[in-house]
């Protein structure tokens, strides 16, 4: 019998097509049961004694699952205990349409002989084929087809067994379908009901997939994020200029903010600020995204609000609150500092990489806070304590170009908190490349002939063999210099070097080299547990400075040499002058004018305040924050070589080849320059050199982040053991809702927040020109001295953090009483 199936379809061109298919119905389709003796061209699949111990169906029966049961309870159906199942063609087609994995699994089950699964082509059976009726949805039609087929089976089996006990059981979780099937005279159970009735095999219940109840289905369909646009729309949008394409960079301090750098040329906007989770729209750091600009009225200045990813006690409220914060800070910025803002409408290319994380109770929140990058490998750049007196003589570079270095092609010595991972094998780095006393070592030397005024008469580079007379630590060397009773050759030469170094330093400072400050913290570790016992800021000795001075000189000399030799492909290091706007905060703080590094250095030197010895350091810390990042670059690709911080016209890194890959490249270049080695193509390719520089810079930055994170982590460990500490500190920055406080003793920073979720915020008046923040009656200025209590907040296991709360000045309702420094004491509820 021939039927035709008609349906309409939309064509790709946008037209509508009516499609008519022929559909043949047959009456010779076998039911697949052993009881049916008709047509035995195929072996029957379904067994006659299809028994399973059940307190609902005590008779032998075949199961007919509906589509949803197959889709959701495939685990059950796959179980070897479940046998004699009739899979209808309707069900199979729907499963195939909706889930390829489920389709594959059910197909596998059907092919397994032991399972006795039978596919009944009910759609082609004359008695079970039904046509869709007017007003019937496709799903309803399929449900009806399933019922009709089940009914046919029931009648057919009854006929074949002469009213025997063999029955069919329809399994469905759809209540409406179940009711209709019952009216239709079918035996029908919910899947759960049936499986639970299998008293002989209670273990099956464990395989049941949890079904959302019809009543309490997840109705919370709140759209968390605006949908991303399809790629075609993004492309057309970029083409006609509605959308901009750029690389997304998450803000490191504020998880609700990010920046998209537009990398298209000829675009007058090259930076778009994104604020709020909705506008960030699931972009992850370094994704290539499409952004839509907001109209000018919505352009803002980056917020000076410090946002921490707080424990999500009330997502929505917090979200609103932070949004409000963002809104409120728009108003008080004058128009000339506005940044274009926008929102992410689509992600063109994901920056996939491994992440690590924890699942918290609320999945969604965790995902949204996911903006920070997590990198697998860090490089840490730390001064080593052992020091070589023969500054001029540098170690021989380990000479293999091939495999080993290519693997690094990057950077190198990994040192995270007293656990170091060497860039080169240990034997090389700590023995063969170390100049030990009275041992011959291969080295790469830079030899100057200097007069007494430390003016270089001649510079000579050579490979050398060095037998060092003594190896001293900084402290030892310092002791010798200071000890007037010692007058041996070594000590004398040390003093000579120190004198020269002082002249060099003086000259350098003259030119405007900066001595900037960042508080370096060192931990005293417990040798057993590796827990930090105490921490202190690093103290610099004269010998440090002496060694540093000659190292700088070596670097500068080498830079000049390799640049003279290879003007196109020398690997150099530069430090760009910061744009004047970077000084804003410093100017505001110091109320001074600065236009050159020299001016900065001078004014920094002069800026001292009586009774406030730390003021100068504070200023230097601030000045450091204003600086640009020093970067490696290839001389052929750039024209500005100036090193701002060192006030040197040219600079490179040469002195530490065992821990910096850049130095190795410089060593190779220098070796070629002095005819001690041959070159290779990659070394002379300025594009390859340039991309190497970029990678070095990137790794370096990551290393710094890792270092900071490591320090922060150990600071936390430290405070965890200490309990609550009261300490003096200085205000480093004043923000709209918080003050950032530097604790000189620990070299750490922290924020004291004034707005509070739990209680009404105190009256806050923020003046961005000062900048000052007036809290109730008290006005906070930069560099004000305050007293805070420091403790570790471990309430959120994932987000343990140091909390600071104000003790002095005392502001009622804001500051906290001086807590007793009992480590075991329950922490008072602190402002956050």
């Amino acid at each position, binding site marked *: 019998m021939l039927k035709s199936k008609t349906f309409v379809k*939309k064509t790709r061109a946008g*037209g*509508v097509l*009516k499609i008519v298919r022929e559909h043949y119905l047959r009456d010779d389709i076998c039911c697949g049961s052993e009881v049916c003796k008709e047509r035995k061209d195929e072996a029957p699949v379904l067994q006659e004694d299809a028994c399973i111990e059940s307190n609902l169906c005590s008779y032998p029966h075949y199961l007919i699952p509906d589509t949803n049961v197959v889709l959701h309870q495939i685990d059950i159906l796959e179980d070897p205990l479940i046998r004699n199942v009739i899979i209808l063609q309707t069900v199979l087609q729907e499963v195939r349409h909706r889930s390829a994995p489920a389709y594959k699994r059910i197909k596998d089950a059907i092919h397994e002989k032991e399972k006795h699964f039978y596919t009944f082509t009910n759609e082609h059976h004359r008695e079970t084929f039904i*046509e869709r*009726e007017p007003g019937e949805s496709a799903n309803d039609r399929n449900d009806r087809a399933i019922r009709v087929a089940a009914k046919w089976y029931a009648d057919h089996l009854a006929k074949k067994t002469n009213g025997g006990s063999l029955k069919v059981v329809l399994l469905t979780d759809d209540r409406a379908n179940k009711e209709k099937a019952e009216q239709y005279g079918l035996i029908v159970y919910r899947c759960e009901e049936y499986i639970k009735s299998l008293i002989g095999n209670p273990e099956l219940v464990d395989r049941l997939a949890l079904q959302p109840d019809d009543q309490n289905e997840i109705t919370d369909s709140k759209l968390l994020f605006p949908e991303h646009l399809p790629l075609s*729309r993004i492309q057309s*949008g970029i083409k006609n200029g509605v959308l901009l394409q750029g690389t997304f960079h998450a803000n490191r301090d504020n998880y609700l903010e990010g920046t998209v750098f537009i990398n298209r040329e000829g675009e007058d906007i090259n930076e778009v600020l994104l604020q709020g989770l909705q506008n960030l729209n699931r972009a992850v750091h370094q994704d290539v995204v499409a952004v839509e600009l907001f109209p000018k009225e919505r352009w803002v200045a980056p917020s000076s609000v410090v946002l921490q990813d707080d424990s999500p006690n009330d997502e929505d409220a917090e979200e609103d609150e932070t949004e409000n914060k963002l809104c409120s800070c728009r108003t008080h910025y004058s128009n000339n500092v506005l940044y274009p803002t926008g929102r992410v409408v689509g992600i063109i290319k994901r920056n996939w990489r491994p992440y690590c994380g924890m699942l918290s109770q609320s999945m969604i929140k965790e995902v949204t806070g996911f903006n920070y990058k997590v990198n697998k490998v860090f490089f840490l750049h730390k001064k080593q304590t052992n020091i070589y007196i023969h500054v001029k003589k540098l170690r021989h570079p380990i000479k293999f170009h091939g495999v080993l270095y290519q693997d690094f092609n990057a950077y190198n010595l990994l040192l995270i908190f007293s656990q170091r991972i060497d860039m080169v094998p240990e034997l090389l780095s700590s023995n063969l490349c170390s100049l030990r006393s009275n041992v011959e070592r291969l080295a790469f030397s830079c030899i100057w002939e200097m007069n007494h005024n430390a003016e270089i008469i001649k510079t000579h580079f050579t490979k050398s063999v060095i037998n060092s007379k003594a190896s001293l630590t900084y402290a030892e060397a310092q002791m010798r210099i200071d000890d007037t009773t010692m007058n041996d050759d070594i000590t004398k030469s040390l003093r000579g070097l120190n004198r020269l170094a002082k002249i060099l330093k003086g000259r350098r400072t003259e030119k405007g080299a900066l001595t900037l400050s960042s508080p370096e913290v060192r931990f005293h570790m417990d040798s057993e547990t590796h827990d930090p016992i105490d921490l202190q800021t690093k103290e610099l000795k004269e010998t440090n400075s002496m060694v540093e001075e000659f190292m700088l000189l070596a670097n500068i000399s080498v830079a000049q040499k390799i640049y003279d030799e290879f003007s196109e492909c020398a690997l150099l290091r530069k430090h760009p002058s910061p744009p004047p706007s970077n000084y804003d905060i410093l100017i505001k703080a110091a109320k001074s004018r600065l236009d050159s590094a020299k001016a900065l250095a001078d004014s920094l030197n002069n800026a001292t305040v009586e009774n406030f010895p730390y003021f100068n350091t504070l200023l230097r810390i601030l000045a450091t924050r204003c600086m640009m990042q020093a970067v490696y670059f290839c001389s052929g690709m750039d024209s500005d070589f100036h090193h701002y911080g060192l006030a040197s016209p040219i600079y490179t890194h040469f002195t530490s080849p065992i821990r910096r890959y850049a130095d190795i490249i410089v060593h190779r270049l220098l070796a070629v320059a002095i005819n001690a080695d041959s070159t290779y193509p990659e070394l002379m390719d300025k594009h390859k050199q340039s991309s190497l520089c970029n990678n070095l810079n990137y790794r370096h930055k990551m290393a710094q982040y890792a270092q900071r994170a490591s320090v922060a982590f150990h600071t936390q460990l430290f405070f965890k053991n200490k309990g609550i500490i009261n300490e003096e500190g200085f205000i480093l920055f004043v923000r709209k809702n918080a003050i950032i406080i530097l604790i000189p003793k620990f070299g750490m920073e922290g924020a004291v927040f004034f707005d509070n979720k739990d209680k009404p915020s105190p009256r806050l008046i923020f003046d961005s020109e000062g900048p000052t923040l007036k809290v109730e009656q008290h006005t906070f200025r930069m560099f004000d001295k305050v007293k805070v209590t420091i403790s570790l907040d471990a309430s959120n296991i994932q987000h343990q953090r140091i909390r600071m709360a104000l003790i002095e000045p005392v502001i009622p309702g804001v500051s906290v009483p001086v807590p007793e420094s009992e480590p075991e004491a329950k922490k008072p509820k602190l402002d956050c």
Partner: protein
Amino acid sequence: MAAVQVSEAEKVYIMHGVRDDLRLDGRGCEDYRHMEIETDVVSNTDGSAKISLGHTDVLVGVKAEIGKPKAMVPDEGYLEFFVDCSANATPEFEGRGGEELGVELSNTLYKVFNNRQSVDLRSLCICPGENCWVLYVDVLLLQCDGNLFDAISIAIKAALFNTRIPKVHISEDEEGVKEIELSDDPYDCMRLNVENVPCIVTLCKIGHRHVVDATLQEKACSVASLLISVTHRGTVTCVRKMGGGSLDPESIFEMTEAGKRVGKALHAPLMELLQKEESLGKKRQKVGFLG
């Protein structure tokens, strides 16, 4: 058109018969031959009808496609006609013989049907200025036995009645990009209102009188004929004179009156028939081309 050789004597016989209101097959001057209509005969179309009027056999298929509205009437859809004069119908159509007639027929049909008085063209509009339904009306002549226009017009009316256009929705996203969405229910479709669709009545002047639904022999006796399209209310929407002979105004008036009368009488039973057929629904045993 198919020529039939009629001798002078036969002509006189026919003319005398017409004069006495008695035609060769026993009809009166304003009687149609036996007519059979069946709709939904071609499943690939959106609407179809087959008519046999005497030995004239015509198949009409309507296909709805999405197109762009004409610039002058951006809020209307339109109809397109194509008449295929199959060589099966008559030997004259062999080769390119039927082409001229086909073009003439389709032009006339376009004039008669493609206006908003006949068909509610506005209902064919999907999105003004952007998309509309275009109804491609394909007429296939299967057999010619005179009075093609009348047969075709009735078949078109029946086919339009049978036409089911899938319902579409215009969805618009925030950027104003419109997309046409198709309803997934095949029964969810739009019907055309064919109430005002006219039928063509062709009157042939034979002697001093005129006849409707002329056979080929009668046609051979006629020098001129008048084609009148009439709606169910008896309104004349189009009049066209065919053939080489002349017609005096007096007889034109008479013929128009007769056409109105006949046309008006034609619509009511036609609609009744179509509705009756539809009420049979899916259970109707189709006759098709073998009936």
